């Protein structure tokens, strides 16, 4: 033990060394001991001429805490050097709760500066044990101590201090402001009646602090007291009253049901949104759904560039609700807004755009941003504005594919048969999404010229045009597309033959089934499958004679598909066609047969199905089990 004490003695001597590094080493080692002597050494180092050493010592002291450190540090609060005093205060705050009792004991020392420092430190520590001692200091002879005590009580936030703060407000003029501010921070509704009185104070600072305190307390009943202040001649006071109402509204989940002269506070509210004040933003946006004149919308449009993404979404949602009445303002704003704003507002405007708004938006087709051009093309199409046809036509030669795609779609929505030729040129675009958009537009337009154009395209030299033609004719779906689609079943490209059959299946009104029957023997299995589906869908059971041939198709998947499709007919008399396939050499066919027989509902299949339940192939066994259950067989 003596060895440690001896070592600490050496380190204390080392603290007097002129060499910075020796002193630094001494402090570092002293920081590793917990003995009072070492603590004293660190405290001595707090007076080192070098700031680095002082801060190092302070750091160790704040970690050590303990009664010796606290007592010694409190002594430094009376130090001549302000830097040392501040450092000691800082460490005591860091030590926190362990320092509270010793600090309270020193609150009555003779030195009023020390008393003031201790009040400040206790406020920063925020421990409620200090409340009574600080309340006593409210009656200190020294004004600075009183103010610091009031501020500290506000920081601690205990309602126990309210009575003393109200009392000191009445007795000492110089502490009124701090007392009201402290009451506000404490937030105890018991202080409200007094605050309503302070609100009438001729001193604007007191009035301001009282209004802020009322807002912080957040009691809904205060709103009616605050409302008259909204017309105060002092604009700052009126705005603080409005801010207090906003806080109260926020605290009460916006359940404040009172008419407010919001128009008088537009600038204040929109400034609040612009400065990202969350309470003001929430308050204002909530009211916008039932508070919108042109000035308000203009104000809102002016701040949308300043809000975060979530708020912007909320703002655009509100603008959408406001609807056409804000349309003109929005179209004005959109022309000068940022790209982000243009995109957002175009999304809003599309909900209610009419021809006059569309006309205003026409210049945006020349916007430098392709996303804006793309979106405005959509909006013009949605507006149904024929005056946009020329601009949209120009956009079909835009260098950006997405823009061309949007322009073609919009022309389709405008149902402009007169531009069908132009839309057909889009089918040769180098990008597939543009070709698809042009095809989609032609589908919407439909009619004889379009059908004739696509019918010609079935023999186009470009296979892609053939593909688009057969797809489009299928979706156009009018009676006059049936003949061209039937002819497309002879197309050399199997994907076109299949697509034609699928389209005919969907259209469902086909009086000549011969080409589809012929397709049952197509060289391509996908075409044969499509033909099976088509015939059974279009003809139902009448087609069974032709289709059953494919139960023996060379392609296993055609056989599978045929079995499945016959199953979908749901008529038990076709079970006899399917039953033999429960013994097929391929398990996948057995599975298809099991499922089909269950759908056909013929119990004569049960013995064979029950046998298959013990198959090693688990998929087959499961299909058989399910079929047995569906047919009501033995479990």
């Amino acid at each position: 033990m003596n060895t440690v004490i001896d070592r600490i003695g050496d380190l204390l001597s080392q603290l007097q060394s002129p060499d910075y590094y020796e002193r630094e080493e001494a402090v570092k080692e002293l920081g590793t001991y917990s003995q009072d002597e070492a603590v004293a050494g660190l405290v001595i180092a707090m007076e080192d001429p070098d700031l680095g050493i002082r801060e190092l010592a302070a750091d160790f002291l704040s970690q050590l805490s303990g009664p010796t450190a606290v007592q010694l540090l409190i002594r430094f609060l009376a130090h001549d050097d302000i830097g040392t005093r501040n450092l000691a205060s800082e460490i005591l705050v860091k030590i926190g709760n362990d320092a509270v009792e010793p600090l309270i004991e020193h609150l009555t020392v003779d030195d009023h500066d020390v008393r003031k420092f201790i009040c400040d430190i206790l406020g920063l520590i925020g421990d409620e044990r200090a409340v009574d001692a600080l309340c006593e200091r409210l009656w200190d002879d020294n004004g600075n101590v009183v103010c610091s005590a009031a501020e500290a009580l506000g920081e601690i936030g205990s309602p126990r201090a309210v009575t003393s703060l109200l009392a000191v407000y009445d007795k000492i003029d110089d502490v009124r402001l701090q007392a009201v501010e402290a009451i506000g921070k404490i937030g105890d509704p018991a202080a409200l009646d007094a605050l309503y009185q302070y609100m009438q104070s001729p001193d604007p600072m007191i009035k301001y602090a009282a209004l802020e305190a009322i807002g912080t307390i957040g009691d809904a009943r205060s709103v009616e007291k605050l409302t008259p202040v909204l017309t105060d001649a002092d604009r700052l006071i009126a705005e603080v009253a409005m801010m207090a109402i906003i806080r109260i509204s926020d605290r009460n989940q916006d359940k404040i049901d009172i008419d407010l002269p919001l128009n008088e506070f537009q600038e204040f509210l929109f400034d609040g949104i612009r400065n990202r004040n969350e309470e003001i933003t929430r308050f204002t946006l909530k009211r916008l759904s039932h508070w919108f004149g042109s000035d308000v919308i203009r104000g809102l449009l002016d701040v949308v560039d300043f809000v975060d993404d979530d708020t912007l979404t909320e703002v655009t949602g509100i603008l959408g609700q406001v609807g056409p009445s804000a349309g003109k303002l929005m179209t004005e704003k959109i022309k000068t807004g940022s790209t982000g704003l243009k995109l957002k507002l175009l999304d809003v405007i599309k909900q209610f755009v009419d021809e006059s708004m569309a006309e205003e938006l026409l210049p945006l087709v020349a916007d430098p941003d392709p996303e804006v051009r793309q979106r405005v093309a959509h909006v013009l199409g949605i507006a149904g504005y024929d005056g946009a046809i020329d601009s949209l036509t120009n956009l079909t030669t835009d260098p950006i594919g997405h823009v061309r795609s949007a322009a073609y779609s919009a022309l389709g929505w405008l149902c402009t048969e007169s531009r069908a030729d132009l839309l057909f040129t889009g089918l040769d675009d180098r990008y597939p999404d543009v070709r698809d958009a042009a095809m989609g537009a032609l589908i919407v337009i439909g009619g004889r010229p379009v059908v004739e154009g696509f019918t010609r395209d079935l023999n186009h030299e470009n296979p892609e045009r053939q593909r688009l033609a057969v797809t489009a004719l299928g979706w156009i779906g009018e009676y006059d597309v049936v003949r061209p689609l039937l002819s497309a079943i002879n197309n050399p490209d199997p994907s076109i033959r299949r697509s034609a059959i699928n389209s005919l299946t969907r259209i469902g009104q086909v009086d000549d089934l011969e080409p589809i029957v012929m397709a049952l023997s197509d060289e391509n299995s996908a075409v044969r499958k499509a033909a099976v589906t088509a015939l059974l869908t279009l003809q139902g059971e009448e087609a069974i004679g032709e289709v059953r041939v494919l139960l023996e198709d060379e392609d296993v998947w055609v056989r599978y598909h045929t079995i499945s499709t016959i199953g979908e007919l749901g008529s038990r008399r076709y079970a006899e066609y399917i039953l033999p396939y429960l013994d097929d050499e391929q398990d996948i066919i057995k599975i298809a047969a099991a499922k089909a027989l269950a759908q056909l509902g013929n119990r004569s299949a049960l013995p064979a199905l029950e046998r298959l339940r013990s198959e090693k192939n688990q998929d087959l066994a499961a299909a058989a089990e399910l079929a047995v259950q569906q047919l009501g067989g033995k479990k």
Partner: protein
Amino acid sequence: MDIQAREENGVAVLSLSGRLDLASGSQLKDEIKKYLEKNVTSIHLNLAKVEFINSSGLGSLVSIMKEIRLLKGRFTMSDLASYVREIFEITQLSHIFEIFATEEEALTSYQTPVTPS
């Protein structure tokens, strides 16, 4: 095509079934016109049972939408079968029609209060 119509909270709800083509598109337009003449400009179509829609049917929907827009009304749809959804995507009409997954969601959206001062 069969059209079942009813009014709910000021919204005309029309449930269509069958094929939406030239003839039925015209029938639908006539049905909706009756509501527009009564100043019911909130129109919702439930397309759950529409099994076929062709070019003329699409044209009818576009034309109905334009007419409702002119009257500052609102036109919504819901319960699109995959086949109908596919043609709406191909033609990009999904961008211009207000489409909801269910009729309930669509009708709820009409309840958002907008009360200009």
